[in-house]
């Protein structure tokens, strides 16, 4: 019975199916707001669903060699992204029942979609995909340092809690983490990291359509491509949720979660629509300077209890 319940949690709510739905809807908000900013009308709400369904019915072309890795790595990324969604959703619903030290598990699982993209790109035997893979990995190195620092600042802030439920409970008593010096700095830093983790402009050098034609995803078609798109959608739901839990987790009733989620989404969309793409070395320099310094200050402040 317990196993059935976890299977349900993982596959339906708040895991795979729900996160796909929420992610695609978030993607629609993204497309609609971007369109309005550019004085276009924008797609109807079901456009993303239609796209995915259409894509998964299309022919799958795989390049010569590396078939096993090429076909399985989209699943790897998609499954781990939705697993994160399940863990996060579960700990919002039952803060007291989350398993111990799940925060670190989440941190590592959030890395897996990038790994999946890199492996898939490497397996596709395409020089442009290799360039994309290299850029993706460098981007991971760039944002991971400030990201880890920001998360550690919040771990210290929540008096050493590495359990999502405890982080939430801590904020329930002491107010949201963002309303402190360290919390605010870490929040600013993590917003940038989130943008890069989602692979959105200005940090989308690994997929730069104009230079390397989709880079890492160039050889993908059909179901594989659909799965990578779904992974992105799930991440678009998961990452803001993670930030909400860490930083603004005081009131997590459904209405407030949705409001906060939309708020963060708007920040993401604004950054995306007002910035040009950075070159990979510019992005690395940026991440190792501004957000890293912000996060380091946040960690120091958090240690001294600010």
């Amino acid at each position, binding site marked *: 019975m317990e*196993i059935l319940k*976890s*299977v349900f949690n*993982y596959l339906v709510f708040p895991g795979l199916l729900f996160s796909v739905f929420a992610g695609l809807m978030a993607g629609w908000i993204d497309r609609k707001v971007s369109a309005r900013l550019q004085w276009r009308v924008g797609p109807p709400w079901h456009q993303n669903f239609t796209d995915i369904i259409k894509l*998964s*019915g299309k*022919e*799958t*072309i*795989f*390049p*010569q*060699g*590396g078939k*096993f*890795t090429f076909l399985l790595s989209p*699943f790897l990324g998609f*499954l781990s992204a939705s*697993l994160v969604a399940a863990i996060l959703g579960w700990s919002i619903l039952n803060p007291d029942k989350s*398993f*111990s*030290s799940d925060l*670190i*598990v989440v*941190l*590592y*699982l959030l*890395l897996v979609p990038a790994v999946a993209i*890199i492996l898939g790109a*490497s*397996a*596709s*035997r*395409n*020089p442009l995909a*290799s360039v994309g893979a*290299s850029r993706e*990995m*460098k981007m*991971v*190195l760039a944002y*991971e*340092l400030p990201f*880890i620092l920001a998360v*550690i600042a919040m*771990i*210290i802030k929540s008096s*050493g809690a*590495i359990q999502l439920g405890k982080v939430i409970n801590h904020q329930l008593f002491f107010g949201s983490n963002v309303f402190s010096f360290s919390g605010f700095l870490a929040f600013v830093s993590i917003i940038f990291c989130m943008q890069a983790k989602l692979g959105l402009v200005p940090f989308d050098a690994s997929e730069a359509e104009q230079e390397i034609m989709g880079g890492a995803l*160039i*050889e993908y078609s*059909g*179901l594989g491509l659909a799965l990578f798109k779904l992974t992105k959608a799930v991440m678009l739901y998961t990452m803001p949720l993670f930030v909400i839990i860490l930083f603004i987790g005081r009131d997590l009733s459904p209405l407030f979660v949705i409001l906060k989620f939309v708020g963060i989404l708007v920040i993401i969309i604004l950054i995306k629509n007002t910035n040009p793409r950075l070159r*990979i*070395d510019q992005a*690395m*320099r940026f991440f*190792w300077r501004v957000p890293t310094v912000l996060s380091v200050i946040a*960690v120091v402040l958090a*240690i001294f209890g600010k």
Partner: protein
Amino acid sequence: MNFFQLFKLDSLNGFVVLAIGFFTVLALVYSSKFMQAKRGLVQYYLYMVITAICAIGAVLTNNLVLLLFFWGILGLTLYLLVNLGGEGANLAAKKTFVIVGGTDALMLLGISILYFLSGSIQMDEINISLTGNSSGLGLAAYLLIAAACFAKAGAMPFHSWIPDCADKAPLPVVAYLPAAVDKLLGIYLLARISLYLFVLSPAVNMFLMIAGAVTIIAAVMMALIQHNMKRLLGYHAVSQVGYMLLGIGTGTAVGIAGAIFHMLNNSIYKQCFFLAAGNVEQKTGTTELNKLGGLAKTMPITYISCLFASFSICGIPPFNGFVSKWMIYQGVIERLSSGFNGLIVAFCLVAAMFGSSLTLASFMKLIHAVFLGQRMNQQENKEISEVKWQMWMPPAILALICVVFGVFANQIPLRYFIQPILGNIVFSGWYAGVTTLIIMIALFSGVVIFYLNTKTVYRKDQAFVGGEALDSDAHAVTGTEFYNTVKDIGLMRMVYKKAEAGVFDIYEQGKKIFRVSDFLRFLHNGIMPTYLIWMLLGMLGLFFFLR
């Protein structure tokens, strides 16, 4: 003297002996094919067996002098085995012998001090506290013995023999000694002295943690820019030791358990890596990354083993490397406090977590350059096929253990190997079983969807490069230039230049200190009258002194 006082089996060394035996068997099976046509096989197998016996002796012994004896023989066989490699192996062997042998001498001094302090050479009778004020000698003894452990395991600053050795020695030797058994020995002895022989003070704990954090970051940064598969793996063999030092340094139950578990895991996947590298070398004749590529299709078993080991070393859940790293992080986080100490602990935590991303980066480069990516030298690669079973089976077994130890961490390794050491502490969390089951089901259903979905068509085609003709030699991205951007960023460039010039290499720096010996060499000119004059002067001095 009672025989049972010489050797003692307890929960800490029991599973280490088991692991050494297991690794020996795998290395010997592997060597039976790899070393087949090489010279000096009698010596090779003899040294391997002596190594195995002495390693087991060193782990089981309860007598410090006996430990020193076994430890010394291990240093000697290591030298002899490294020397069996090809060109340039003698220099690597010399370096190994100087560093390992030199620290063995330090250990002798440390054990003498220990005897002076406690009046016993039985390990289970010694218990020295480093917390008091008058513990200077005890601290010296601890640090001297720890230096030998650092050198054996390859922690900084005694690490520099491992990359050289990995590059030059025969690969089964590297996979067996520096990658697996030496790690077990070094960390086992460190754990033994840190947990049983001494009671550590907070300052020593902090020292271990910082040494660990620096080792992790510095070695992995060097690994990132390597062009040779063996050297890259060698630097990772150094980097992973940092996690174990960090875990032992935390002094918390979960941290120490994590460190010991990581020691076991690291030996498993590191041996897997070096054996896989041996397969690649056997089939292609090189381990230079820019000459390899696209081997996944021709050597699938080696590829899958290497991929699983990579997932494991990078700490991707649910592989075994994740579980042990995750325990170490918990231990470090338990030590977080406010004030200056908290800052250092936070630094160690960041180093460990970011080090893990850097590890991921360099292994993605390795996988891309060797197994995936574009195929180099198409004509030559056509004849490559999977190696013989004696060579693919050991890495495959090790990769399988990586998965099993990760998924069933609580049920098998933690329960039987790690928990007995620490008594009644129970680890909670990470019920990987259910999650993995779901992932397995989902992956399996993915495969089924792929094969059952008859409506969609699968087609094989050339890679698309914007309509140009694909010339794999001209267009190939080898992976060696993956991280040139990192290498070129301001401060990094300077540090890398210094590192490549050997500024952080204790062996190169040690040479400078021993410039003193140049004067002695100048005196030793081999001319009889010079020596006579010195003897005369010496006698005069002696007479003057005894006057």
